[in-house]
């Protein structure tokens, strides 16, 4: 599990650096530190709940097994993100310089990174489906647990990332490690009330 933790940390740090690179070099450093933190904190917060879910759905799993599968999922996601970092970098370098006029660029980059991270998360959770099938020995039950875990990772990971924002870095706020209003709002609310309406010109 130590190796998985190393892969998770390095992969996420690599992508995190690209994530923050658009706003400022210091933001790249902050994001490189915070994205691995998102992975580790998400692992810690979801492990016990995921173990409870599996138990409630009638599968006997030890907490150690759930821990290993959680680390496997998030390490895989980090590896996928690291492999996508060159692609993300080319789009970051192509975006207009950060300024208050570059809100559209910020929102596009935000959506783009969200899609990449969501895709990597799905790839990571897909990686644990095989081991989960072997442990459950019941495909239907395994599928239910798998979907429940995906939802848990998505909701918890999204909220942890929101609390540890900024990653891309807003054009309206200075570069900081953490925002003062860290626990105000959530990522989904931000995407549907700010990012998408601006891109689709709803407001």
């Amino acid at each position, binding site marked *: 599990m130590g190796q998985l933790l190393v892969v998770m940390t390095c992969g996420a740090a690599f992508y995190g650096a690209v994530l923050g690179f658009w706003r400022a070099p210091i933001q790249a450093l902050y994001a490189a530190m915070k994205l691995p933190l998102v992975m580790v904190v998400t692992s810690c917060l979801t492990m016990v709940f995921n173990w409870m879910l599996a138990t409630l759905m009638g599968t006997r799993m030890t907490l150690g097994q759930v821990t290993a599968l959680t680390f496997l999922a998030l390490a895989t996601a980090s*590896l996928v993100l690291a*492999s996508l970092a060159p*692609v993300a970098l*080319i789009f970051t370098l192509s*975006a207009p*310089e950060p300024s208050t006029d570059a809100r559209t660029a910020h929102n596009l980059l935000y959506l783009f990174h969200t899609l990449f991270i969501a895709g990597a998360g799905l790839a990571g959770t897909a990686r644990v489906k095989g081991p989960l099938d072997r442990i459950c020995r019941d495909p239907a039950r395994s599928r239910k647990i798998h979907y429940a875990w995906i939802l848990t990772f998505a909701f918890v990971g999204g909220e942890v990332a929101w609390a540890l924002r900024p990653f891309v870095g807003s054009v309206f706020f200075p570069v900081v490690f953490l925002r003062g209003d860290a626990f105000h709002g959530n990522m989904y609310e931000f995407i549907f009330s700010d990012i998408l309406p601006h891109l689709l010109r709803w407001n």
Partner: protein
Amino acid sequence: MDERSPDALVNKEDIGSALPVSIPSAPSGIGPALAELLKHPLWAITRLESGGPILPSLRLLTGGAVCFVAYGAAAGFFQGGAQVGLAAMKAPLIVLASLLLCAPSFFVFGSLAGADLSGRQVAGLLSAFGGMLGVLLLGLLPIAWLFSFSTSSLIFATWLHVLAWAIALWFGWRFFTLAFPRAPARNVAFLWTVLFTVVSFQMATILRPVLYRAPGTPVVETGKLFFLEHLGSLKSPEPPKK
């Protein structure tokens, strides 16, 4: 292009059974290598899987790059003059840079989908993929040249090349379905092809202008732009031609 439907190939052993008992050694020239890639794409894949040298695949990529140069030159005839040479230089750069940027994700995606890939196989497969794209564009070159030379609409010319690129990419993806006939890897290959497509559009935007350069403007524009914005900006009044 394939000698057997990808759906009929269930696993690597099936690939082997679809082939002649002995595969001829790789052609030594670039032309014969590209011709073989068109007629027997499985041979290049099987040589890579059986641990053959990577040189034939690199030969395919070199051939592909030559094809991109030719296609770029044909596209440059939209404006003519120096733009023919500039487009000929930019076209291979766009494709090769996109391949390089997407190589890490090809390895990771493929490995996660269950394909047992080595670095050598990744380099070989991507080189053959590049060769396939190049030779398909070469096939479309006369049409591209005719329309590029005769049309005065930048929008039409741009979308014509997008269509040609889409056709080449479709067959490029079909090449991957031969390398990865089983479902997870095959689907992931499709996903990667989409990623490669998006990156190639962005690379074309970074290296713009490819088709038309207004007098007095630099060879490569310095402003930063997303490819969607770039395609959208083509709605602006058309530049005077020639």
